[in-house]
């Protein structure tokens, strides 16, 4: 039954999001789906 469930984006991207939280300045604009929540979670509000 679990096979029918599509993993949410955030679950699939969680490891990448953690990387972004560690080094936001290296990330390009294409990764906004990661940068924006990373900024919200880390309280680091620079780099965009």
């Amino acid at each position: 039954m679990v096979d029918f469930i599509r993993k949410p984006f955030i679950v699939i991207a969680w490891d990448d999001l953690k990387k972004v939280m560690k080094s936001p300045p290296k990330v390009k604009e294409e990764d906004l789906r990661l940068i924006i929540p990373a900024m919200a979670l880390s309280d680091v509000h620079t780099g965009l």
Partner: protein
Amino acid sequence: MSERHLFGIIDDLRSDIASLKEFFRIARSGDLKTSELVSRLEYVLSEVESDLDLRVRLCKYLPSIKRRRVAYKELYTRILFNLRQHRQSIYLLYMVYELISLREKARENVTYRRFLDLADKYVDSLTEALNMPTDLLIIVAPQSEYASLPILSKRAFIVMLPPTNLAKPWKWVLLSHELGHLYFQYYRERILIRILPAIEEELRDVVRDEEQVKGYVSLWGEYWLQEIVSDIVAVSLCGPAYLKMLITEATEPKPAQVYGAHPPLDARALAQMTYMKFTGAPDELMLIMERVWREFRNGVLEMDSLPDYLNEEIVRRVSWLTLFESHL
């Protein structure tokens, strides 16, 4: 009996359309998204205009059936219904015009223009992650609060955020909730058919009065389910960051309180955490979510629990059923 009033309404609508056409012509800008939206809306105006021509012909036909009073009144009323629909379309287009104007005003500033471009790009990428149709035009506009305006007949959707939040991109995760409303609008029938009967079943366990059950089912179908599903869409896209910014934006000293269309914050947080748990989210993600919520909730004095008609069992069941909406 006279058709004079109908002609008066038609003339008034025609002059509104002419004004709106002029407003949209002025609002059209070098910005591709604004321009595309204006084109789609101008098409709506042309459609209304053509239909008004047809109504004029019907109005001219009315005197010939004046002696058949019932037939006359039926047609007269039908024309009125139709004209009222056009009136509502024009109100909607005025609202859209105001939003476009605010967007263009903000774009005059270089910094805000860059932020708006990024916000547009951000919502497009979230929409893509949601597997929504690719021909949807989604456009960000500043307004007093986070909100959305669907114009689904033209496959357009406006998401709004306060102008003060334009330069605070970390708060844009809240736009994902607005996209949740778009998701709900698209799959409304399917979601309601799947989830509303389960809600009704749960309600019957806790609410004895049949009329009350019907009333609460109606409120769930009209408002609360859409909000919970929108939160689930948002958390599926942004995770704990969404819950954190929701707590910030809601600024809620009474998290068990129901405010009209919105379920209590306690219910919204529970739905998000339950859903993420059901998806098999990583432990670390869950720990952060629970910590974010606990840090806030433990500080609030309110001891009330959720009302029966929005209780934890119902919220958990909604989260579970939403899990099987494969598009998420």
